[in-house]
């Protein structure tokens, strides 16, 4: 219906390979982009900076992890550690007086170097063994952060991030910080969209699905896995730096602890492995759902006149939130992105379902 494919005729390979094939998708993206740009004028800045901004940054992080786990098929449990490398290098660089543009780049590159150095050794094992090895990286990084005062200022200490600035212009307003997060999220999204139509994306999918078939097509799996870790780590590093610079304003080891790694992985899996829109949805669900469930519960309790103790109010939403994740994954194991794709595919031919092949 809305997503009509009929009448879309390509007369060149360039147009056949454009980012959004269906006109409705293209229009939807343009509308969403406009809402994104207008958000500071539509949403109160409290909500903008405590919900929308972290959602965008975490989405960028989820996309980065999706690159290595969803595309290249390598389970990664040390993602927060890689983000920490980027965050700390960028903050230190900025404190040293390096402009933030370069500080972000330094953050990304140092993450990339550490991430691929680590992957170089870890990639000798596969599957669950690799997952455990990456978990080891997380613990090593946690230990390093809490035990090296030169990096973190000592255990339980935090490192103040200098005010964020781009092109010599200090950015302190809520809207300004939001635009920084939005810009980075869009850049990462564009990169991921491009992956769907280049040899690099195809090579990663080949490595993920059948590495022997990839090899006979000339794809060097070890090299491409390494590139996946390097690229994903770069995204993680810059995202970690932006997270500290625009949201936390100070860097502390517990911001990048093992539970954060698990949380980002949960966002990837609930959103859908290899799904871009799913990454947005997964991040939103995991970040916003606890608050929403909490509010729904207290509102419901108030409605039926039930007195809930603070204790109960703190625990019930957690249980409900866990149950929601289970339900979502039972309905569609491929994640929210696939759930959306099913609806979209259905609407694509509605009301002529009988035309379905």
């Amino acid at each position, binding site marked *: 219906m809305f997503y009509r494919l009929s009448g879309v005729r390509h007369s060149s390979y360039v147009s056949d390979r454009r980012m959004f094939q269906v006109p409705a998708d293209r229009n939807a993206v343009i509308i969403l982009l406009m809402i994104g740009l207008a958000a500071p004028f539509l949403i109160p800045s409290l909500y903008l900076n405590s919900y929308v901004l972290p959602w965008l940054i975490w989405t960028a992080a989820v996309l980065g992890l999706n690159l290595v786990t969803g595309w290249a098929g390598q389970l990664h449990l040390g993602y927060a550690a890689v983000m920490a490398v980027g965050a700390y290098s960028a903050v230190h660089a900025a404190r040293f007086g390096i402009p933030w543009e370069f500080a972000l780049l330094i953050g990304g590159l140092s993450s990339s170097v550490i991430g691929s150095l680590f992957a170089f050794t870890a990639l000798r094992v596969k599957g669950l063994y690799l997952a455990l090895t990456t978990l080891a990286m997380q613990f090593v990084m946690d230990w390093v952060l809490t035990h090296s005062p030169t990096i973190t200022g000592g255990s339980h200490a935090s490192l103040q991030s200098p005010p964020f600035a781009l092109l010599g212009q200090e950015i302190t307003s809520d809207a300004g910080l939001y635009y920084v997060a939005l810009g980075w999220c869009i850049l990462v999204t564009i990169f991921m969209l491009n992956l769907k139509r280049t*040899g690099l994306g195809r090579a990663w999918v*080949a490595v993920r699905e059948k590495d022997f078939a990839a090899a006979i097509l000339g794809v060097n799996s070890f090299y491409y896995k390494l*590139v996946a870790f390097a690229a994903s780590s770069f995204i993680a590093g810059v995202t970690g730096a932006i997270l500290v610079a625009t949201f936390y304003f100070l860097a502390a080891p517990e911001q990048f602890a093992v539970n954060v790694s698990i949380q980002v992985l949960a966002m990837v899996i609930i959103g859908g492995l290899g799904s871009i829109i799913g990454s947005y949805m997964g991040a939103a669900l995991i970040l916003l759902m606890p608050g929403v469930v909490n509010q729904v519960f207290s509102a419901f309790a108030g409605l039926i006149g039930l007195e809930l103790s603070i204790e109960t109010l703190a625990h019930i939403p957690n249980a409900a939130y866990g149950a929601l994740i289970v339900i979502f994954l039972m309905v569609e194991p491929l994640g929210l992105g696939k759930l959306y794709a099913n609806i979209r595919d259905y609407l694509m031919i509605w009301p002529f379902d009988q035309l379905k092949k």
Partner: protein
Amino acid sequence: MSAEHQSGKTPVLECRNVERRFGGLVAVTGVDMTINRGEIFGLVGPNGSGKTTLTNAITGFYPPNTGQIILDGKDITGTKPHKVAAMGVARTFQNLALFNGMSVLDNILLGRHVHMNPGVIRTALYWWLARPEEIANREVVEEIIDFLQLESIRNELVDGIPIGLKKRVELARALVAEPHLLILDEPMAGMNQEEKEYMARFILDARAERGVSVLLIEHHMDVIIGICDRMLALNYGEMIATGVPSEVINDPRVVEAYIGVGHDA
């Protein structure tokens, strides 16, 4: 360039005394095989006779324990599979090795990998750096799609197409790499007569139009006799006969290996 012109005596592939063992099991031993340029070479043998092991030895998955493999005059013994692919060997698999989540078009585009140079920066700056390469390779892919008559399923997911077409897509993916040597591992398994004839025609046309040399593993003797120039029969990992198909299949040892000999009471 016609097939006759090409099929001089220049060998594309030479296997010299190849042996491959798995622990105590000798899968292939003492195999000598030469495939000349422009030749369609048949490889037959009962199940478990070492045909697939031999192709795996050539493509580098199971490097031979002894012996040599020479491709275009270069010793490639023990070379990694992805490097062998880059040197001009393409193959299809007995049980299909297509990427199910991808479209037919993307699968065939992957066949062009050896001619492409994908990278992170190129992907990030798609419009300037990756697109020209993608489009140029797309044109080669479309030629093959046209050649193998896959136009109508170009955008389908590989998951949803019938097995006969899957085999054809895999052939397309191998051909699009412009290999010197094409290894087809039972390309006609499970096909009906009509599909077999189509496939045989495609293999002959591929040689005539693209000058590719083919190593064909098949159980269908009619196909082997119909399109192969020379052939080799294996049994228990050893060569039992080699030469022109019409002679090889009448060799008593080949008959015995395949059909068995009656024992009079």
